[in-house]
């Protein structure tokens, strides 16, 4: 069996009396798209925040590429190849679209204690940034302010920023949040194209997207994982139907 890329073991996170992550264990294999689904408030975003290092779990461990990263901060995890996107669009609204992505490149191009050379014309930052923007379909919006992009485009930028760090694992928190049907379809196409090049943990409410993309699906309810399996297995799982899919199945 292949060694998992990410290994989460018995993760627990409490907010006061609320257990937002409850004894959660989960593996992600290299190159797989692993969807995490669950009703609102199930703890999906909280889970991603712990994987990315923004929230500290109360118990449990996270191993990435065989190393324990439970105590590393977000920047250190990013440097080891973990990247995330945010459910609520999180960009640098007052900088240009290309600046946003070039910063992601810069973060992984050595230290930034460089005070004199103009980074805005540095081809080692700008070329990869432009290429990534091309890849997500924002090639012609490079020079505009990020804050002036339409919502759907901001979601694409969100993805481009994560991609530009050249991660081995992408944590995507509802990449299609707030998108219309056309835009969602385009996003699914983008992710389809990424499949195999990078492992993806995908949190998404759009079930068509999930079933189109996922190699495996884990179902989160009240902070714990009630089932993990292939899309086929999850579709036919009685617990899942009752707890979650049942609502609209």
């Amino acid at each position: 069996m292949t060694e998992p890329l990410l290994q989460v073991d018995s993760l627990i996170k409490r907010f006061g009396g609320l257990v937002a992550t409850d004894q959660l264990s989960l593996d992600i294999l290299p190159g797989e798209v692993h969807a995490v689904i669950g009703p609102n408030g199930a703890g999906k975003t909280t889970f991603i925040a712990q994987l990315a290092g923004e929230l500290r779990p109360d118990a449990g461990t996270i191993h990435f590429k065989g190393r324990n990263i439970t105590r590393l901060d977000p920047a250190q995890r990013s440097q080891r190849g973990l990247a995330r996107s945010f459910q609520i669009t999180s960009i640098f609204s007052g900088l240009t679209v290309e600046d946003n992505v070039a910063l992601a490149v810069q973060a992984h191009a050595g230290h930034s204690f460089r005070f004199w050379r103009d980074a805005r014309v540095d081809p080692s930052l700008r070329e990869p940034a432009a290429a990534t923007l091309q890849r997500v379909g924002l090639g012609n919006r490079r020079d505009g302010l990020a804050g002036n992009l339409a919502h759907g485009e901001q979601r694409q930028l969100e993805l481009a920023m994560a991609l530009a760090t050249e991660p081995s694992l992408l944590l995507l928190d509802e990449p299609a949040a707030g998108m219309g049907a056309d835009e969602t379809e385009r996003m699914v196409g983008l992710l389809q194209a990424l499949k195999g090049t990078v492992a993806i943990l995908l949190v998404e409410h759009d079930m068509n997207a999930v079933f189109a993309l996922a190699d495996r699906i884990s179902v989160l309810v009240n902070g714990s994982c009630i089932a993990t399996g292939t899309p086929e297995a999850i579709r036919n799982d009685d617990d899942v139907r009752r707890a979650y899919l049942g609502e609209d199945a």
Partner: protein
Amino acid sequence: MVLNRRIIVTVLVLIALALLPVLLGGAPFYIGVVARAMILAIAAISLNLILGYGNMFSFGHAVYIGIGAYTVGIFAHYDIFNGFIQWPVGLAVSALIALLFGAISLRTKGVYFIMITMALAQMMYFLGLSLDKYGADDGLVIYTRSEFAGLIDLEDHVTLYYVVFGFLLLTVLGMARLINSRFGLVIRATKFNEARMRALGFPVGRYKLTAFVLAGTICGLAGLLLGNFTNFVNPDMMHWTRSGELIFMVVLGGMGSVFGPIFGAITFLLLEEFLSDLTEHWQIVFGPFLILVVLFARGGIDGLLGRKDRSDD
């Protein structure tokens, strides 16, 4: 580059500053007013790095003016007038204090950051008050300005003016480069979204602290100049109201703009000069004026000149 109103005004102001001593035929009073404005502009530019570009609302920035000026004063007190000793020490002490104060205050955010930078600065103010050896609240008179082995004579007020002007140009040029460098973009992006910067892989704290230290050091330079210029230093230079004035200059000129603080400092001092001639309660006029600027001209003077948006330099 397009020749717009903003560039024209900026260039005209710089030319006027360069020619002022000639135009005024050496009239000491106005040369003095403008030299002081340029010194404060250097301080305001340094504050703008953390306040305007980095969104670190330091309310204690005048401390570094005090440190620079006290360095000149204390050395002169012991008859050490050599600028090659005074100035590096002044800059080093400013950097060290900024490192210490930054390390403490950057652990906090928002209103706490404002309050802690102010508290630390007030601590230095009271330290100055308690130093009987160095004149306590009366401060020190600096009878002899810094000497540079006969290379430059700061006792000549026109020479001093051009030294200040030279440092102002250097500071502006340095800042113009800095804000578009890798470091500068890190600082500016952090202002918009610190959590995202961390997620992208930047150890944000180090960069913010470095910016804080840089700003403090440049402001220390302004202090060295001011001590020489006024021939005098006292604790009042570090009082929180002085820090407040530096914030006014930055806001008035335009936060996060390279030249803004120069416009702000000059306008501030000219207003102070003329309004205080009209009435001794000039602050009563000045206060509402500032509120109007903040409410209706959010980009400050540089904004009125046509600086388009916050991503501009």
